[in-house]
């Protein structure tokens, strides 16, 4: 079978990466190996139907949420609360725990399981106070040299009157700025919905991963359909057009790797999904472990500053 166009583009990215001087040395070979493996795993370019299936799986009501992974991946988890100024946002969780015997900081959006929880956690949509909490805990990690793991699962930042009055836009900007300054290893995984500014606020990391059926996008399929087609019912068409699936994000260089899910999706087997996620995070942290802090920061900024397609 001749290689698909998708595969060819991935190969092109691989060859471009081989000539990137900024990665240099041992780290480069790790990067290359990972890409090569991704390439081997990928088959055809996802179709519109495949993409929509990921949209549905990413939002599946039984999909494991951040705390489900915390429970299975971290030992001695101690959740930290509040932004030290105004509130404790239940849509954003933060805390410290042991991952493979080392202390790490974990931040992430948390959705609710039942009506009560969903309301309290606002479906994983943070207020500025949630980002403030994430920022203070990431800064704590920086002071103590703890790696930061962030798990992204949000339809977006909360669009509320108070949220706007308390500086939602600035909070999202500042949270990214904090991440651009960290001198500790940082790994992000999009585990469900990676919705727009609400997601990127905690995703400016050294390694950005996505679960196989997660989505990562600048706007929800419904929002995009509403604006460009003037009909939210065209969401499937919109998703096929802006391609929020993991394979396309990898191809565009937006993420560094895809975390496999159990057959049928992460909700089918929490334990297996957590094991696979843990393996990927471990691999990423191991790669970053020996890189000096200043160098981590420099490479992280260089990576994000290289994103975009123009002529």
């Amino acid at each position, binding site marked *: 079978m001749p290689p698909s166009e998708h595969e060819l583009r991935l190969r092109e990215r691989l060859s471009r990466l081989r000539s990137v001087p900024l990665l240099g040395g041992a780290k480069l070979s790790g990067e290359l190996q990972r890409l090569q493996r991704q390439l081997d795993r990928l088959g055809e370019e996802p179709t519109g139907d495949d993409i929509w299936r990921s949209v549905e799986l990413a939002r599946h009501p039984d999909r494991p949420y951040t705390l489900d992974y915390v429970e299975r991946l971290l030992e001695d988890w101690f959740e930290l609360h509040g932004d030290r100024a105004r509130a404790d946002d239940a849509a954003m969780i933060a805390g410290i725990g042991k991952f493979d015997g080392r202390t790490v900081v974990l931040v992430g959006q948390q959705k609710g399981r039942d009506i009560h929880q969903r309301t309290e956690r606002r479906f994983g949509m943070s207020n500025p106070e949630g980002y403030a909490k994430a920022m203070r805990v990431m800064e704590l990690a920086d002071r103590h040299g703890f790696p930061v793991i962030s798990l992204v699962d949000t339809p977006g930042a909360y*669009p509320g009157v108070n949220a706007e009055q308390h500086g939602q*836009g600035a909070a999202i900007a500042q949270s*990214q700025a904090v991440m651009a300054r960290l001198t500790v290893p940082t790994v992000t995984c999009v585990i469900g919905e990676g919705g727009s500014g609400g997601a990127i606020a905690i995703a400016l990391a050294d390694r950005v991963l996505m679960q196989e059926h997660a989505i990562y996008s600048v706007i929800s399929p419904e929002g995009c359909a509403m604006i460009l087609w003037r009909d939210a019912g065209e969401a499937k068409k919109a998703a096929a057009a802006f391609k929020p699936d993991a394979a396309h994000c990898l191809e565009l260089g937006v993420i560094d790797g895809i975390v496999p899910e159990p057959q049928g999706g992460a909700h089918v087997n929490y334990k297996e999904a957590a094991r696979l996620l843990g393996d990927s995070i471990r691999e990423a942290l191991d790669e970053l472990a020996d890189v000096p802090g200043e160098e981590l920061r420099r490479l992280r900024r260089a990576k994000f500053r290289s*994103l975009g397609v*123009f002529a």
Partner: protein
Amino acid sequence: MAKIDVSIETDDKPAPPPKHPNTCPSCHSHYRDDELERALWVCAQCGHHFAMRARARIASLVDDGSFSEEAADLHSEDPLGFFDLRPYTERLAEAEMSTGLADAMIIGQGAIERRGCELAVMDFAFMGGSMGSVVGEKFSRACDSAIERGVPLVTVTASGGARMQEGILSLMQLPKTIAAVEDLRDARQAMISVMAHPTTGGVLASFATLGDVLLAEPGALMSFAGPRVVQELTREKLPDDFGRAEQNLRFGQIDAIVPRPQIRATVARLLRLFDAPV
């Protein structure tokens, strides 16, 4: 030929007659082009700030003849082969034709009251000032240029947010521009951010709110989510000045509201203050 009434075929109300772009939406005063231009597109009757094009904005800010544009030839590509009701490439070509710009931001070197600075100025007329790869790259280069020449950066934003047609890559322009601002900060160069109407979504949630000093024009909408989205979700009546510069000032989100005719002098003053002897 007789006009055929087709209104029964649609539920839409007939569109209101288009307002003339030179008619003030707030007090309905009407101006000739040259009157508006002389007044920097501010209504002489009620102070409403009309939209201002990027080139006119730059001319209103810098010393005569001091501006030299950089990266003018950067063009958007179509990484996703994006097609909604029309192809993205067609929208781009049309925007380029109607605005005479290659994308929604102009960057370059200039001087304001004889102090050198780097400028990054957005133009809402180019696809709603949306931020895609080109805007991100230009802003990023403006930061580098400011660092290289040891001058502050002055930004003027007018944007509806990220450019949907570039999908996830447009979202990536948020961390990209923020990483550039962080490099600027490490080099200890100042950034003055002027927010014009509207500065919303991804531009508000990235470099625009990271200036050392945040200024806004009167009445400028500066919200992350649009008023309609918030209204639909919360079902509350929104405050009259929801998301406007005035509300942002009251809630401590910006440093000052500056009417357009005073922006040049204000920025010049700030540049003087930041230019402390080493």
